[in-house]
């Protein structure tokens, strides 16, 4: 009978974290459904059987019944104790990361995710993991609250700016699962999506090695990579289309007009200031939505990004 409510849940892809949740949800749904049906049938039955036949109907005086009332207080109480214990057990499991878990660092920002691996590899909005092995995500936010949610794994954890939080799962089959941000974080909250991509152990090692070597390259290449990882591209387009912030195409050397400052031409110092102190000069027609990248980008990083911007000609 537990299958009655199966249509409500997506396919479970991390039984180690989600099996208890699914069983518990099935149990609560079934018990609730039975009690709800009982109450509803009783209501409708009484309404028909005891419908008013005349204005002079007399009703018996029934004020209370201790035995009945104690029964229907104690039975639900016992039921919720079961539900509490069951939920607690499942939750403990979610909070207890297996010792052999593979650790990946997660950085959340408005509006995207960066995943960092032990060998220095970084990827934006895609987390690649090996199948059949517990994965621990150590998460931190760069700005406001976010929340990491994978429905297929039945896991969710808020991501905070001032402390690390963690979450774990183990996907047994290769494939993809959707990641949502589930703590409201502003304009593009609903676009703050990512994918979990599950590889076989061998494919994963190969992938990781390939990514790990990607740290070098020219300043322009490093700059382009940073733009993807640091979320610049979620507001600034590189192709001239309009976004939450002004496009970067043709930005370099252009005369900029501001809401409340004298216009300047876009040079290194202007771009640097806009990254570290975004509210200093707001481009005409835009609102200040950006948070400072002070502490998140090194001087070298900023130089690389500027080198990349120079390549974006109209």
């Amino acid at each position, binding site marked *: 009978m537990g299958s009655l409510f199966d249509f409500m849940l997506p396919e479970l892809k991390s039984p180690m974290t989600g099996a208890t949740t699914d069983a518990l949800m099935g149990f609560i749904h079934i018990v609730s459904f039975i009690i*709800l049906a009982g109450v509803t049938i009783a209501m409708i039955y009484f309404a028909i059987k005891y419908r008013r036949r005349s204005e002079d109907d007399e009703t*018996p005086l*029934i004020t209370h019944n201790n035995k009945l009332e104690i029964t229907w207080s104690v039975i639900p109480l016992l039921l919720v104790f079961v*539900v509490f214990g069951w939920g607690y057990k499942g939750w403990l499991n979610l909070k207890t990361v297996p010792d052999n878990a593979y650790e990946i660092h997660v950085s959340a920002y408005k509006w995207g995710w960066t995943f960092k691996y032990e060998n220095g590899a970084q990827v934006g909005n895609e987390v690649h993991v090996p199948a059949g092995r517990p994965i621990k995500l150590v998460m931190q936010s760069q700005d406001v609250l976010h929340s990491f949610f994978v429905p297929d794994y039945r896991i969710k*954890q808020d991501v905070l700016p001032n402390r690390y939080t963690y979450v774990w799962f183990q996907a047994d089959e290769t494939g993809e699962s959707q990641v949502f941000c*589930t703590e409201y974080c502003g304009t593009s909250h609903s676009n703050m999506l990512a994918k979990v991509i599950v590889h076989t152990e061998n494919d994963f090692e190969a992938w990781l090695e390939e990514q790990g070597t990607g740290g070098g390259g020219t300043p322009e290449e490093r700059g382009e990579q940073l733009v993807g990882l640091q979320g610049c591209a979620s507001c600034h387009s590189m192709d001239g289309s309009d976004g939450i912030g002004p496009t970067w195409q043709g930005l370099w050397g252009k005369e900029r007009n501001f809401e409340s400052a004298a216009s300047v031409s876009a040079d290194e110092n202007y771009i640097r200031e806009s990254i570290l102190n975004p509210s200093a000069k707001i481009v005409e027609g835009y609102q200040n939505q950006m948070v400072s990248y002070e502490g998140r980008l090194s001087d070298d990083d900023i130089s690389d990004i500027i080198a990349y911007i120079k390549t974006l000609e109209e």
Partner: protein
Amino acid sequence: MATAEVSNTKTLKVKRFKPSEDPKSTFLTEEKGLWAWLTTVDHKKIGLMYLGSVTFFFLLGGILALLLRTELLTPAKTFIEADTYNQFFTLHGAIMVFFVLVPSIPAALGNFVLPMQLGAKDVAFPRLNLASFYIYVIGAIFTFIALANNGLDTGWTFYTPYSTDSSSSVIWVTLGVFILGFSSILTGTNFITTIHKMRAPGITWGKLPLNIWALYATSIIQVLATPVLAITLLLLTMERFLGIGIFDPAMGGDPVLFQHFFWFYSHPAVYIMIVPGFGIISEVITTFSKKHIFGYWAIALSSLAIAFIGFLVWGHHMFTSGQSAVATTVFSFLTFLVGIPTGIKILNWVATLYKGSIEMKTPMLYVFIFLFLFSIGGFTGIMLGSLAADIHLHDTYYVVAHFHYVMMGGTLIALLAGLHYWWPKMTGKMYNEFQAKIGAALIFIGFNMTFLPQFIMGSQGMPRRYYNYIDQFTIFHQTSTIGSYILGVGFLLIAFYLLRSLFSGEKAGSNPWGSRGLEWQATSPPDLHNFDHTPVIINGPYDYHKPMEEFQLGLADVHHNGHEPSHAAKAAAEEVTN
């Protein structure tokens, strides 16, 4: 003349006062004109002014809801921008919670009915009552000026650090809500005092209508919890204006602390919204079953139990927030305990129907709808209280559906039950019963069509507060949107026949439902001073086995014309006996 024993020491001389079916003067025919209304200290007029304001805000919040649902017809942009969508859902939530649900039953219906059910002439502090109304109006105007100025996009929960970083009018709106809070606190204080000091002779605590018990529990929560909201909002203001780091990690604060503060108010606030609804259900279900309530003390005391335990469960909004493991466990446990008294009430109400004489008039129809929808809200609450399940369901549409089943399926349906129940008393007119039943059916169908699909897409993973969504959820969103239009039509129909009844409705008698409640022993609409005698109560409010005459007693000594509070009435009673 008859005599009645109300205590061991005093004997009152009472006689029967049958309410006139054709009152010469009512509160509507006296003190007429705009200025008289704006400066009135009459609880009935103030109640109606609240009802008008709440209806206005409900219309506003409802239109926003329909715009939101329309935007969600397609997975990407339908007709408004993401920022506009974010402002709309913030406004919808803030208006419906602070301007509609919190004041709806206590301030509108409660104000009208409470003194009448106590046999009093007015509330204990009539001028303070008027002040509460104006504080509510000022808070509303303040909030709306701020909103018109710069919008608000934080969600009604104002979570930090988003709300401290946001460029929208967070501070001005929170100050508006801060002002609004005082209205709530003053109304609560007023009700508590009235219930303690203004009961007519013979109304002992065991003979209080359950509506009064519910309003009493609500008032206690209002007085104790609302100041915490004020403190939270002031701290937020201090952080924004003075740069004192309380919640913002950039200044050394802790964003989770804000959530604790916020929910310390906002969870009890859920009970401020729902407990008065319980009161209405008890009144309506007994009247239309012509039967004594089953388990009077269980229902009365469970309201107080809910009020008390309701203060200790705020952390269940924060299972994924990173709060401590011990806190999470304890909050989950206590959450289940608050579910029990609520479940007990449902079963008591159903048991009241047993062997009753049930008449399916519109208010009773709403009670049935309430019992069904609120039960679903309660069961899904048990689901969300359980830790492992909540981790999966938190901040998804499952939660959205759950609180709409509780707040709309519960509070709002109870409000509709109460409105249809007391409408003849308030206006002296009957609405069209057939149209009213069609309206209730539309509401029931529209509501379930809107919110049932949200349970499914929520457990499949659809997060709340999403402007765009992935394609697999389209069918659920579209069903939900069509349901919301049906709901909208239902509310328009209700507005139509209620307004129409004012002009062409049949005249309502003083007691069209044959209730034993004291408020039905006044004329419809009531006299400016409710009763022209001091009512004396010898039976409980649900003693349907006693003849109607025994519920129409008042002090025989009409020398004082009944226009004095109960302590004076007692003194007068002693004079009579001497």
